[in-house]
């Protein structure tokens, strides 16, 4: 086994105070000045540690308070209340909910996975990934000494073309081709951003983090600068312009250390693939295409033509292109199964992304058939983005992302990925699976709401039904 993969993490402070769910409302008027004031008895010493951030006009009361309500319930004149923070409710949107954003912020800041007491408090299920549960095993455990033990769970995946079988000649020499593979120790790649403020520093943070984790970050050719060359080993260049002499020159300059390149799908895409392959046989070429109704068929076509990696993308809400769009997990299942049916699934690597917001989404998309996933907005959120999308309108970023220190940003991303990696281990451990590669397409080890609900579908048929 390769050496054990571990992402070290350490707290990385916020630049701005996080927006939290609720606040303390305390009046002074009517205060009885009790000798034993409830504020002095606060278990969390919220009132002792009180401070005001002048710049952001935020009271530390709100962020330190843990909602035990003892002061609310103890004040004789009922002068203390809690109230919902309207700014919290207004965060993000229906998909990128306030709860998801604060979950990402917590991980990026602390480098720890969210652990809490009491049972789950969220909705029973929901659209998309929330309509799916993962399996567990009562008595089988993948390792004898726990998920972080000496016998570890591997999260390594390899990207590239795979041969179905090996051929040898009569002398016992290998005759099959051995296509190049690149390995990533964690099944996440950092994708292009759907929007962001001016992003030179953001890209640098992505690249630094990709280098720390030994994975890749996509960088469009149009945004490439020589400053990024230090990270070329962890860069996936994305060819976001028609191929011309400038492209040739640029790639020729980088090709020695470049390992992975991505090009958009096009009718004559295979010509471009061969042209790039001519530069370096071991350069792995990925083809980017949108999730759509036609994705399964196109993926099969490309696989037949010998493509190494296909990168399927949904929009930032996990939706495919076209009318009545399917959610990413549902189309992923279909694409995966159509390749399985053709006996071609293992030859090609499928990377998929769009709407991946939490660690569980990564695990679930892999179960639905992806070899690895790509992640975009959460990386910004790790750097305190509030998904307000003002940058799309050209309005200044409230958390000044363009000016942040890339080093700081990369450590925040590293923390988030450490959390995701550990959570992936929890899911794999619970299922008794020892390798993320074996999680791919394991739909029998997941439960889908549409199947489970069948038990209920007959309940409530009235007389007229």
């Amino acid at each position: 086994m390769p050496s054990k993969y571990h992402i070290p993490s350490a707290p990385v402070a916020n630049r701005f105070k996080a927006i939290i769910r609720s606040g303390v409302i305390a009046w002074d008027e009517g205060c009885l000045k009790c000798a034993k004031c409830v504020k002095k008895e606060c278990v969390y010493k919220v009132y002792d540690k009180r401070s005001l951030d002048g710049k952001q006009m935020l009271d530390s009361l709100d962020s330190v308070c843990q909602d035990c309500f003892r002061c609310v319930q103890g004040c004789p004149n009922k002068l203390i209340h809690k109230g919902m923070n309207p700014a919290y409710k207004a965060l993000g949107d229906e998909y990128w909910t306030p709860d998801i954003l604060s979950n990402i912020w917590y991980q990026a800041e602390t480098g720890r996975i969210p652990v809490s007491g009491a049972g789950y408090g969220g909705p029973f299920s929901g659209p998309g990934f929330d309509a799916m549960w993962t399996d567990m095993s009562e008595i089988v455990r993948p390792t004898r000494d726990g998920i972080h033990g000496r016998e570890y769970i591997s999260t390594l995946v390899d990207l590239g073309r795979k041969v179905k079988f090996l051929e040898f000649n009569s002398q016992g020499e290998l005759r099959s081709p051995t296509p190049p593979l690149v390995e990533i120790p964690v099944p996440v790649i950092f994708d292009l951003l759907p929007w962001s403020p001016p992003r030179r520093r953001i890209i640098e943070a992505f690249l630094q983090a990709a280098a720390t984790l030994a994975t890749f970050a996509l960088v469009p050719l149009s945004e490439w600068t020589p400053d990024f060359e230090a990270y070329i080993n962890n860069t996936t260049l994305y060819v976001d312009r028609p191929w011309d002499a400038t492209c040739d020159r640029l790639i020729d300059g980088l090709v020695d250390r470049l390992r992975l390149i991505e090009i958009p799908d096009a009718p004559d895409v295979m010509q471009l693939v061969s042209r790039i392959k001519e530069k370096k046989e071991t350069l792995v070429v990925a083809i980017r295409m949108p999730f759509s109704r036609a994705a399964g068929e196109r993926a099969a076509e490309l696989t037949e033509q010998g493509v190494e990696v296909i990168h399927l993308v949904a929009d930032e809400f996990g939706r495919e292109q076209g009318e009545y769009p399917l959610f990413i997990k549902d189309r992923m299942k279909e694409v995966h199964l159509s390749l399985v049916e053709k006996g071609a699934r293992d030859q090609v690597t499928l990377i998929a992304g769009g709407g991946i917001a939490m660690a569980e989404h990564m695990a679930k998309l892999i179960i639905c058939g992806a070899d690895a996933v790509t992640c975009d907005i959460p990386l910004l959120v790790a750097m305190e983005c509030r998904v307000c999308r003002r940058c799309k309108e050209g309005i200044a970023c409230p958390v000044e992302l363009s000016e942040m220190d890339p080093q700081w940003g990369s450590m925040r991303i590293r923390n988030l990925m450490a959390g995701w990696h550990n959570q992936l281990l929890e899911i794999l451990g619970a299922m008794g699976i020892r390798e993320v590669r074996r999680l791919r397409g394991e739909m029998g080890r997941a439960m889908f709401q549409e199947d489970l609900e069948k038990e209920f579908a007959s309940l409530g048929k009235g007389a007229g039904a």
Partner: protein
Amino acid sequence: MMEKERRFQFPLAKETPSRFRNALSKYRIAISKACNNCGACIDLCPYGVYKAGSKRPRSVDQHYCIGPSCEKNEFFCVSRCPTNAISLMPNPSFEVLGDRRWPAELLASTWHMAETGKIPHQPMNYKTGDSGGGFDKLRICYRNGHAIPRDEISTALQLNRSGDTRPKVTVPVPFYLGGMSFGSVSIVSMLSRVRAATALGTFCCTGEGGYPDELKPYDDHIITQVATGLFGVREETIQRVRIVEFKYAQGAKPGLGGHLLGDKVTPRVAKMREAVAGSALFSPFPFHSVYSVEDHKKHVDWIKEMNPRALVSVKVSTPTDVDMVAVGSFYAGAHIIQLDGSYGGTGAAPDIAKKNIAMPIEYAVPRVHKFLKEEGIRDKITVIASGGVRSAYDAAKAIALGADGVCLGTADMVALECLRCHHCESGRGCARGIATTDQELTNLMDLEWGTQRIINMYLAWRGQLLGILSRLGMRSVTELVGRTDVLVHLDYMKGDIEGELD
């Protein structure tokens, strides 16, 4: 069985108000300076919201207030106040309380039941949460016109249905209280639950944290747990009790071991668990002595050998093959199979596990029930559902889906005034003195108070169960088992439903 139950004397409900000065209420009442302290409001309010004060009346029990819906009543204090001094508004703090599974109204209703032993008179939903699926979308449908008199209805549950020679243990209510270890909760919380279970003639499980000596007087009502860490498990503790429970997995963190963070491992907790104070305790997963159903049978045999009068319960989570797990447990000799659904409680667990791993109990119960029936063994084993049962209505629905009874935990915590802040795991533990081992915080709760709160709540639950069974025309809760035909799922409701939905 009926005879025996009739002889069982349920304890009486006793008024047990909040331990805190101000109970959390849905509405907030303010009396302005215009008040001339005439006392009209005190006389008017039939719910006893007001008490006399020196300058003006005080709305001490504003959690009894029924809010704007009172407007139509003659005794509506706001409009009857001669000086217009009373104003009524929603309480902003109420909105902050709770979550989708336990919305503020369900919490406050449960507090009301724990305080009074009665269902709330305030306009609050005490039957369901707001999770948008499962129990919260299921309704009981009353089609039968003949209500059975309540005193003719049995809520008793027989726990040993195997037909073996071990005792036929019967509990007068179709539920018992689930495992919460000493360490995850305080000794006062633990004893309150055990004493309430004793008073109600049922059982309470120790959880995986040892068997504190204080529990000895209640041995006959204790289920002792054998879990993967074997914390505090001794031959002697196994021999003390009438039911022994194997915990293979827990719904909130299926496939993960137990988890007690270092701060809560006080010297006493450490001693009980034979561990080191201050260092976090992780139970392994799974049982390292069980890697097959044959191993599992050896486990069960071992307990049976050690305690010839004990019934054996097996607590499992809800994986894809939960039905096979149940059958396996039966053939290994279990009397009780407890299915712990994924939305169950815990003292600490990774959020990803709570939300995503294993299926909700609403799906698992009908599946297991059906499968056991097909195997012809449904009558030989007791199926207990847990993990997300929050109210008497959830309990009734779980039974209608195919369980014999249910197992509760979080509801007890709520009765003790837990408000689900989700901070049981950190630092000194629960700031409200429920799930803590800190001495000062533990002292926030009195044992008599805690015991009575839990008794009150379950008396209110039993009352509701009797009401449901009565309207369904059933004389025993055992008649409800697997009767999915009395349930309606709001998402799949089609055509005219005959009968009344509840």
